[in-house]
């Protein structure tokens, strides 16, 4: 493999691994605010117990997020130096803003959240929890701003440099921040993150119920998380629709690849299928005219097809078709699970339906998968560009870094991340098995 393929693989590996954790921090952060808020409001010990237990889980997740996140801040410079030179003026400011407005906030107050329970008043502690949750949400804003600028660049002009070469420079900062795709993508990321957090709480609670341990604790946590999960899953449907409309308007090649749509004509929506890239055909089960209808409100409106783009300007089609459709299928499944859970709760059968509790235990994996698949669709769908229509990914590499060096770091990261993942799962399981009791309480019992 050459330096380009290796650098892309390394970026993909490091960002995909990193992205297991931030959505959990965001979603679980929201749940912590709810749990602790309920405690302050009702002063019932049970909510405090729930808040303290999930704070311990949060601490582990947050540490993983930080450890793998430092890599991301520097990887633009190490592997994508030409990209950094080209976009630093625009893209760098979003990253710097993330540091100034988000990282300091969440990391500063994290210490209070984890270690401050007995040092500060409950109200002050709640404030710290709120700030950590807010910091996590701010962080997503800035990183989505940076990424959305790569998808739909705005508010810049190209300037020739004295030493040769050109770069993008900011002309209107607010246009950079609110590039055409920013707002719809932030909501999409938030809902994905809330689902990740809520389904994690659902999974752990359902596990306790199946094991008949800490039942009051588990039932209360489950009910609260179920409400968050149901709301976020349904809202995600709307934000997904909104996102897709923006893609249709701003990145037609990407939308066409998502649906394997070749001829510019009225377009069907595939439920599932397979793209035969060699012959330019898509096979599968589809609803005629639905894509046209979703994009423009008319089922016979033409949607730009892939044939409008020369092959060197198309992304890998079948790959993004599959990741995109898998993401949607999972999204629908999550709505079904969460709303069926609400239905069971209303009918009073939630605690007896053991099969459904097992579904909830496993459901924690689904938002994770959907989040990863969604990012793969968005990022691979932007190819062959690193900045849409402005810079090709193949022109973005570091010129001074050799393939052998990237291979070395890639092996290093592969090894370390595998180790970290095993340890993370082991410790997460350990915390779950340990349950909500503190060490002293267990000591008293023994």
């Amino acid at each position, binding site marked *: 493999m050459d330096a380009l393929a290796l650098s892309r693989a390394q970026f993909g590996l490091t960002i995909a691994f990193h992205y297991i954790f931030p959505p959990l921090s965001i979603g679980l952060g929201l749940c912590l605010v709810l749990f602790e808020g309920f405690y302050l409001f009702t002063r019932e010990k049970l909510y405090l117990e729930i808040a303290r237990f999930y704070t311990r889980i949060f601490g*582990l997740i*947050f*540490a993983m997020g*930080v*450890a793998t996140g*430092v*890599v991301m*801040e*520097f990887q*633009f*410079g*190490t*592997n994508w*130096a030409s990209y*950094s*030179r080209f976009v*630093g*003026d625009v*893209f*760098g*400011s979003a*990253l*710097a*803003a*993330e*540091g*100034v*407005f988000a990282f*300091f906030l969440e*990391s*500063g*107050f*994290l*210490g*209070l959240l984890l*270690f*401050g*329970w*007995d*040092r500060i008043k409950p109200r002050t502690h709640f404030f710290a929890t709120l*700030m950590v949750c807010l910091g996590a949400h701010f962080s997503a804003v800035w990183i989505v701003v940076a990424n959305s600028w790569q998808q739909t660049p705005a508010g810049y002009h190209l*300037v020739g440099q004295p*030493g040769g*070469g050109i770069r993008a*420079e*900011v*002309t209107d*900062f607010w246009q950079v921040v609110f590039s055409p795709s920013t707002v719809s993508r932030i909501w999409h990321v938030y809902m994905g993150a809330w689902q990740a957090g809520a389904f994690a709480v659902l999974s752990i609670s359902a596990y306790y119920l199946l094991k008949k341990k800490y039942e009051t604790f588990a039932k209360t946590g489950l009910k609260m998380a179920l409400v968050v999960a149901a709301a976020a899953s349904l809202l995600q449907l709307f934000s997904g629709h909104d996102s897709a409309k923006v893609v249709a308007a701003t990145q037609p090649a990407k939308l066409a690849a998502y649906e394997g749509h070749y001829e510019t004509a009225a377009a069907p929506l595939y439920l599932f299928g397979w793209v035969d890239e060699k012959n330019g055909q898509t096979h599968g089960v589809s609803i005629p005219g639905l894509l046209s209808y979703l994009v423009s409100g008319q089922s016979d409106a033409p949607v730009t097809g892939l044939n409008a783009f020369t092959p060197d300007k198309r992304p890998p089609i079948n790959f993004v078709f599959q990741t995109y459709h898998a993401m949607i299928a999972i999204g629908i499944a999550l709505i079904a699970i969460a709303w069926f859970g609400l239905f069971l709760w209303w009918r009073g059968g939630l605690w007896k339906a053991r099969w459904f509790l097992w579904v909830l235990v496993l459901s924690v994996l689904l938002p994770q998968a959907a989040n990863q698949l969604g990012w793969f669709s968005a990022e691979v769908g932007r190819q062959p560009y690193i900045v849409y229509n402005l810079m090709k990914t193949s022109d973005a590499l*570091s*010129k*001074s*870094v050799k393939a052998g*060096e990237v291979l*070395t*770091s890639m092996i*290093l990261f592969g090894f*370390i991340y595998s180790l970290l993942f095993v340890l993370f799962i082991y*410790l997460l399981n*350990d915390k779950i098995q340990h349950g909500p009791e503190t060490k*002293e309480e267990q000591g008293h019992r023994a």
Partner: protein
Amino acid sequence: MNFDWQTLWFILVGVLFTGYAILDGFDLGVGALHLFVKDDTERRIFLNAIGPIWDGNEVWLVTGGGALFAAFPEAYATVFSGFYLAFMLLLVALIFRAVAIEFRSKQPMKWWRQAWDISFSISSILSAFLIGVAMGNLAWGIPLDAGHEFAGTFLGLLKPFPILLGLTTVSLFAMHGSIFIVLKTEGALQAKLKGWVKNTMITFILFYVLTTFATLIYIPRMMTTLQQAPWLFIVPVLNVLAIANIPRNVSKGQGFGAFLSSCAALFFLMALFGIGVYPYMVFSNPSPENSLTIYNAASSVTTLKIMSLFVAVGLPLILSYTLSIYWIFRGKVKLDSLSY
């Protein structure tokens, strides 16, 4: 006269990295000394002394990196791609350090704790050393081509001067860390650690003198700005005074005073480094005409102005809650059920 936004941002990026050196400096230092205490409780006290704050400290590095990217993208691109393997090692060390702190306490087995103790300590030392080596290379100069790309090799980065600066950084952080840990401990452990302060202090001062002479002899370029603006001589003077004040505080038993002196010493050392390399971001050695200065490496003035607004809004907030959090966690380490 036009306002010199590039110099302002050279200072601001410097402030972020100085914040990092002062804050993560002591927790890297605590990590460097970690293996020298043998007892499990004592090691836990070390970890919990930095437990609630190390993460916030590391953010200064991340934000410094982001600010460098935004304000001087050419320098960010050249340095990080040029020091590729060295930075990958630093990242690996920082990852190991972070997870070692988090994972160590989770299991009681001796081998488990020993393994994380070793990775915590080695990665702390390695981080400090690599940061010093990187700074040493920026002072000495690295070969750049006409397109500002690094034209040297990994082994070429390991010249004697950068290695000397790497060792100096380790000794500096070890001293800074030992002064900090004395503040967080009491009783017999504190008495033992006070002895360490003397040793680390003497080691650092030896390295400091050696580095100063090496710089004067081999890198006269570092004096240029001082000669042009003689009022800046206040910085090396205050630097020497701050360092000299550390043994004075220590001998008088003023622990917190010693820590403040140590912070001041770090601040002035970073300032001195900044004055020395100014106006270069990355000096090219050989072929100085290919160097990156604060002017040909900077973003547009529009971007620098926008980011100045970020800093004007953000920095007071950051400082106010950072100080509040340090205030809440002041005092001696007490191990409880929440501790690592």
